[in-house]
């Protein structure tokens, strides 16, 4: 085995994809995950999920509206962004972005519109003046509400949700494929990346729903629907096991085959990614939530509040786990020189255009948007605790 000094190609001193490109898959992961949870209620009739079904849909929309922001911030020529839809080069995974995103947005907006039609009609009947006009416009002039219309609405929601599941999988899966198909990058290149990203997305979607659901109910001092929460927590447990196992199996396979790339990947994990990958992503934020959720899923609790608290902490940890996973994939892959002989460095600046403060804002704003959405599309019909 030859030993080597730290050498990177001269063009590799600066990395190309910054923390903005870490945020994009993180946000679309939550979009896809939340939508899939909602669809399990609509398509597979899991009644226990009814409480969060609409909330999941609107969350999906709030994050979706912000998914393009990190990308536009990163593009060298954002004013040319529409070229992706005008002159797409279909051999590129990235060219699918414009169409998939638009198509998915249409499905989500339609589904939300159909789900909230009854409420909108009630509000239309109760309001006056400009508010009445706005509701009239939102309803596209159709204010009929009877058994027949409700039946048709429900039917269309089921169809949309049915189409939506594969589209949501593609919306996030293509990002995985985008990385996994780059043969030039030894950390990214694997056929499994598409699958790993999808399962990781479902984990982040479930985690953000649990996190927000419990947080909102705690704020408003309302009771949670325990059946719904238990089901989501069990699923979170199950999907996180699959997601982490897939990633570790992939790593095991690469290390076992011990091909040329393993030497530098091993150095990456023992060096630059030791803290963010080994200690944090796998160690703290995977193993600990796994143990906590095993406990909450398999054992009967006398004190429900403690159980719910453990579930909430697990969801926060898993949200961080998915964020670190995106960081480790996107940034980790670029830290390796393509010469396989060294590493470069990266940490975002605080005030940079693609820096820490901007990242913070980009993650925060969808949550604020959700808060505003609740005023227009109220999510929960809760019981007071």
């Amino acid at each position, binding site marked *: 085995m030859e*030993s080597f000094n730290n050498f990177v*190609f001269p*063009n590799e001193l600066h990395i190309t994809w910054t923390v903005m490109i870490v945020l994009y898959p993180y946000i679309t992961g939550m979009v896809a995950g939340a939508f899939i949870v909602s669809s399990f209620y609509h398509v597979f009739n899991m009644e226990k999920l009814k409480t969060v079904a609409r909330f999941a849909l609107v969350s999906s929309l709030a994050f979706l509206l912000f998914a393009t922001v990190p990308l536009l911030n990163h593009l*060298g020529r954002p004013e040319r962004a529409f070229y992706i839809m005008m*002159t797409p080069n279909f051999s590129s995974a990235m060219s699918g972005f414009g169409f998939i995103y638009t198509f998915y947005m249409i499905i989500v907006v339609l589904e939300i519109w159909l789900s909230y039609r009854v409420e909108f009609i009630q509000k239309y009947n109760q309001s006056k003046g400009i508010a009445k006009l706005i509701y009239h416009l939102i309803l596209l002039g159709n204010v009929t509400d009877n058994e027949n219309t409700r039946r048709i609405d429900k039917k269309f929601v089921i169809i949309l949700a049915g189409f939506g599941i594969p589209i949501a999988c593609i919306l996030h899966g293509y990002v995985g494929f985008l990385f996994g198909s780059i043969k030039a990058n030894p950390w990214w290149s694997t056929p499994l990346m598409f699958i790993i990203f999808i399962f990781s997305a479902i984990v982040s979607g479930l985690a953000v729903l649990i996190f927000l659901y419990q947080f909102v109910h705690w704020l408003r001092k309302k009771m949670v629907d325990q059946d719904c929460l238990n089901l989501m927590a069990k699923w979170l447990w199950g999907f996180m096991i699959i997601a982490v196992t897939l990633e570790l199996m992939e790593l095991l396979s690469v290390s076992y085959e011990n091909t040329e790339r393993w030497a530098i990947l091993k150095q990456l994990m023992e060096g630059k990614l030791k803290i963010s990958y080994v200690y944090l992503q796998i160690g703290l934020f995977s193993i600990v939530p796994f143990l906590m959720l095993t406990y909450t899923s398999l054992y009967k609790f006398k004190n429900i509040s403690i159980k719910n608290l453990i579930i909430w902490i697990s969801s926060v940890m898993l949200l961080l786990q998915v964020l670190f996973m995106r960081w480790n994939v996107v940034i980790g892959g670029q830290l390796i020189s393509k010469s396989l002989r060294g590493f470069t460095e990266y940490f975002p600046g605080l005030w940079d255009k693609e820096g820490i403060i901007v990242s913070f804002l980009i993650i925060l704003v969808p949550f604020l948007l959700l808060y505003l959405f609740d005023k227009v599309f109220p999510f929960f019909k809760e019981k007071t605790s």
Partner: protein
Amino acid sequence: MEKIERRQFLKLGLYSTAGVLVGSFFAFAKTEKDIGVKSYEDLLKFDWGYIVDTTRCIGCGSCVRACKVENEVPDTFFRTWVERYEISDSKKVHVDSPNGAIESFKENNTKDSEIDKAYFVPKLCNHCYDSPCTQVCPVGASYTSPDHVVLIDKKHCVGCGYCVQACPYGCRYIDESKGVADKCTLCYHRIHKGEAPACVNACPRNARIYGNLKDPNSKINKILNQRRYGVLKPEL
């Protein structure tokens, strides 16, 4: 013959000298050759190839400087660079490329007594057939010309950086001042006028060779038929 005045004679001499100088400038400066490309079909007669002879390179860095000037390559980025390999007794390999070797190389990193062998490897865009960079460009700004040179349409590039990630050789970069991708163009503007790319022109040792692979009599084909050669990262 009438007697010419001295002043007139001097003026005549001055103007004719100037005329000869200017005229000779135009006559000898034109090194362009017509390579016979007038239509799309003519382009198909060319398949531009490039050889780097690592047994001849001395690491002077002239090629890096020439390319920087000819193509206005931005600071800290390189369309071509030279790497130095020092292999020592303990089978250690030390590779470096200080600022792309634009100011050549200074002292060795390994002690002279320990060096088994050392050599220089100039690198540049490989202009791959089936290149991964054109495959991943979402808007088709990266493309391969009919004469097999991989180029970038800078008016169309959105600066997403996907091609930079896809290149196995690290030869692409984003030109921050323009927000678009950039890389070696094989001096497309020069080869179509029969002039060698700037790096080939600048090399004092003929370590860089270019030519038309479709021309059986070209220098590049003669070398490929006579000597052993390899391709970087052939498994990709």
